[in-house]
């Protein structure tokens, strides 16, 4: 016992002693480590004038040379996107200079300069000269750039398509578009592109039908009198394209449904396991309606839902959803039949004008013009209010003296006639104008269309086409059009003349006719990238007209509303810019190996195919088409209204979209599409709930689900409160009066969420298990 006391005293002493020591000398990380343990730099250099990546590239090169006497080109190329040209290896770079550029100094080092953006240059820099170049006195920065996010990657990520592809919870499986038909009506298809196979790029060809409406040498599809149909893989591959100066269709189809073209490809599209039907369309309204029916007939023949992409449009019409094309399209939508249309690229064109005439204000004027001048084919479409009327007089007006040199009679819209006029300029130069006036058969609105038939008045002339509009106590809207793609749109302007009756154009109401269909999903575009690395021409930057911060609306994206006040576009998606497949038979030079727009090639044997960049609402449209194909895989009877409802409830908003007004935004629609949330959101419909009985609740054993009405494509899932699926049953088509019984005997007591998806609708119940 005495010994124990001595031990206890000894421990107490030690304990106090330690505490005393701690109080006197707190424990600290040593200020210095033994020198033997210091990892000394194996290489060191000044990084003055270099970006981080440039410095790392040099460091790796030094390491490699030290280790093996040479660099590992393949490894560096993969890591830093280097380019070999001849016997030199280049880095795609940005060079920033202070003061005047010493071009000769850079050239002496073998630098190949690209574009100039202020004091910034894009350039191909020989990697063995980087060290010397950064020593140059005028150089502020040499940045070899970061390897770019690959653009379909980005588009898939920001739209949450990747989450759908992975089947993240609460989804119970990956969704890839399997079992859905994706139709694409377009021009410039390369039927042989590896993007249209499965993810290997060589197996399971996925194009099921191809109708070339432009080629009358073959057999048309049954029920049609024109074009050539291809129904077998061999026939399609030997087609093998519809156009040798266009790549548009290969691009849009690749975005909606491409599988990437090779294993691990970042250019994978959205619905990459869907069935594809392509129609090389004659770009005219009646042919489009035939094409829609063709795709839908095929989908019906194989019992699959379908969504059709249409990346084109027009400005001809009342813009109120009443055009014949829009009426026909509206009637061709329904459960499992969705149509998607690009909003248009007129978001920066002042091609729309309107005027409300009140009280004594019964006259308005505008100049209809374009740069450099109106030529044959320019048109203006004017619409008044239903059951009212308006009149128009055309003049050649001198914008300096404000004297008219020639004018027409005043024509009333309801006169139902077509006229041609010669307006004669100063030197007997003539502008020939067609004018058609009628009550529009579809909208019932008074309508005057003005067409420039010919124009010999020089663009230097101060005489311009002037429209005088008379519409007491009424309202007139007008749209300017252009003769063909690639030339500027017509516009309405006041030429800065400060007359209160002169009206000028703006870019609202520019969502195209077709995209304004009441059951058609119309898509605007936002920006995700403005810089890319081309295959053989280094770093590239978007043209100024397409430039916008990442996340912002694309400057070209057309704006709503429709003429009847509906919000359009419905939704936005990445479209500025997108990289997808292009047509290997395209001889325009836009998408060959040397084009700055091409970013990647794929070889199989001796044949090469390419992926390239494009921008436009044409590119955002197939993003949404692909996403709707994913949704149709889960909800095969999804209707346009239900699809739009899902978009409205889940679209992404951010600093760029701002808060979306309750009735939508005429720039963003309901925001940026969200593929994942749109698919998983609970869209409960009272209608379906009224046809179901779920009992008993609470339950201790069996849960009964009774269906009063026919229930098609029924899927029943039960999740616990953590979201974990504990029961899933793809019950298929159930007849009225049938009942499903779920055994919950072994489920722990607690709260469960029962989801019943049927007829494209969803009902959700909270179930208590005792």
């Amino acid at each position, binding site marked *: 016992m005495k010994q124990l006391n001595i031990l206890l005293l000894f421990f107490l002493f030690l304990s106090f002693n330690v505490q005393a020591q701690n109080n006197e000398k707190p424990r600290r990380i040593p200020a210095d480590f033994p020198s033997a343990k210091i990892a000394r730099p194996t290489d060191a250099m000044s990084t003055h004038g270099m970006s981080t990546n440039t410095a790392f590239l040099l460091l790796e090169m030094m390491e490699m040379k030290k280790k093996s006497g040479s660099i590992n080109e393949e490894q560096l190329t993969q890591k830093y996107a280097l380019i070999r040209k001849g016997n030199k290896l280049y880095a795609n770079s940005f060079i920033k200079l202070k003061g005047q550029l010493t071009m000769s100094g850079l050239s002496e080092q073998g630098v190949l300069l690209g574009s100039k953006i202020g004091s910034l240059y894009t350039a191909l820099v020989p990697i063995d000269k980087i060290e010397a170049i950064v020593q140059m006195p005028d150089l502020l920065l040499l940045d070899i750039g970061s390897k770019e996010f690959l653009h379909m990657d980005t588009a898939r990520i920001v739209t949450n398509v990747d989450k759908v592809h992975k089947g993240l919870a609460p989804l119970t499986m990956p969704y890839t578009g399997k079992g859905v038909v994706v139709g694409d009506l*377009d*021009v410039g298809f390369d039927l042989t592109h590896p993007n249209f196979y499965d993810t290997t790029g060589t197996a399971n060809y996925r194009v099921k039908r191809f109708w070339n409406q432009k080629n*009358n040498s073959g057999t048309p599809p049954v*029920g049609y*009198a*024109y074009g050539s149909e291809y129904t077998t893989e061999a026939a399609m591959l030997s087609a093998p394209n519809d156009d040798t100066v266009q790549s*548009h269709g290969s691009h849009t189809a690749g975005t909606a449904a491409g599988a990437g073209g090779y294993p691990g490809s970042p250019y994978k599209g959205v619905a990459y396991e869907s069935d594809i039907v392509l129609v090389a369309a*004659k*770009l*005219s*309204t*009646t*042919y*489009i*309606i035939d094409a829609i*029916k063709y795709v839908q007939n095929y989908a019906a023949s194989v019992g699959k839902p379908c969504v059709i992409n249409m*990346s*084109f*449009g*027009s400005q*001809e*019409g009342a813009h109120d959803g009443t055009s*014949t*094309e829009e*009426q*026909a*399209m509206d*009637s061709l939508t329904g459960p499992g039949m969705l149509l998607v249309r*690009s909003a*248009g690229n007129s978001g920066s064109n002042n091609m729309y004008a309107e005027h409300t005439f009140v009280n004594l204000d019964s*006259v308005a*004027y505008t100049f209809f013009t374009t740069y450099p001048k109106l030529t044959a*084919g320019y048109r203006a479409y004017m619409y008044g209010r239903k059951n009212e009327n308006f009149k128009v007089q055309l*003049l050649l007006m001198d914008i300096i003296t*404000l*004297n*008219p040199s*020639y*004018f*027409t009679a005043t024509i009333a819209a309801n006169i*139902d*006639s*077509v*006229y*041609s006029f*010669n307006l*004669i300029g100063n030197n007997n130069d003539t502008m020939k104008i*067609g004018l*058609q006036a*009628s009550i529009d*058969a579809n909208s019932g609105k008074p309508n005057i*269309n003005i*067409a420039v038939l010919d124009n010999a008045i020089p663009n230097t002339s101060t005489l311009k086409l002037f429209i005088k509009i008379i519409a007491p106590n009424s309202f007139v809207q007008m749209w300017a059009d252009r003769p063909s*793609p690639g030339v500027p749109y017509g516009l309405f302007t006041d030429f800065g003349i400060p*007359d*209160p*009756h002169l009206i000028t154009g703006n870019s609202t109401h520019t969502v195209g006719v077709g995209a304004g269909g009441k059951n058609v999903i119309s898509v605007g575009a936002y920006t995700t990238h403005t810089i890319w690395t081309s295959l053989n021409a280094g770093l590239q930057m978007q043209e100024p007209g397409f430039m916008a911060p990442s996340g912002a609306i694309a400057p070209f994206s057309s704006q709503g509303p429709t003429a009847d006040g509906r919000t359009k576009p419905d939704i936005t998606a990445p479209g500025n810019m997108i990289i997808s497949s292009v047509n290997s038979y395209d001889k325009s030079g836009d998408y060959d190996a040397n084009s700055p727009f091409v970013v990647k090639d794929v070889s199989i044997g001796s044949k090469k195919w390419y992926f390239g960049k494009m921008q*436009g*609402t*044409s590119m955002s449209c197939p993003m949404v088409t692909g996403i709707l194909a994913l949704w149709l895989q889960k909800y095969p009877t999804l209707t346009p209204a239900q699809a739009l409802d899902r978009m409205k409830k889940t679209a992404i908003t951010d600093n760029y979209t701002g808060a979306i007004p309750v009735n939508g935004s005429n720039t963003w629609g309901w925001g940026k599409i969200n593929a994942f949330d749109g698919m998983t959101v609970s869209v409960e419909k009272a209608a379906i709930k009224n046809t179901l009985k779920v009992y008993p609740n609470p339950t201790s054993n069996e849960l009964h689900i009774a269906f009063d009405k026919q229930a098609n494509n029924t899927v029943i899932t039960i999740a616990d409160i953590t979201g974990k699926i504990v029961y899933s049953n793809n019950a298929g088509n159930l007849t009225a009066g049938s009942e499903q019984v779920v055994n919950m005997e072994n489920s722990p007591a607690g709260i469960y969420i029962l989801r019943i998806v049927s007829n494209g609708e969803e009902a959700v119940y909270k179930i208590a298990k005792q």
Partner: protein
Amino acid sequence: MKLPRFLLVLILPLAFFTGCTTLYAQGAFPVSADTKFFMMDLQNEMNTSKQPLKTFNPSTQLIKKYSLQKIKGIYYVSGFIKTDKNFSEKQLKKIKTFPGQPSGDIRTILVPLSAFSTFLNQKGITYFELSKKLEIN
């Protein structure tokens, strides 16, 4: 620069009222604005060439402007028709047209250019609209 100056200028006889040609759409049913422009251009070409419609060969410009379709050597006009209960597909096929499948009360149709005036007097059609050009965007 205010409106009165415009008005004053307009009423002064310094400018000349232009001569114009009027063409009324003659037929059993209304047609679209584009169809009227087409008929005007067609009539002008026919006047110049002095060919009757049955043997008329459209110019390249007319073909391009109005997307005329040549199938087995015959030129066709493409458009939409709206129909009523008197519509007879059989009757239309007699004049060698190709009506498409209906979408509601709307059908697409290919009309031989040579039979276009006959087509405009067919019964059971309430409206004809020439196919409108679209552009990729």
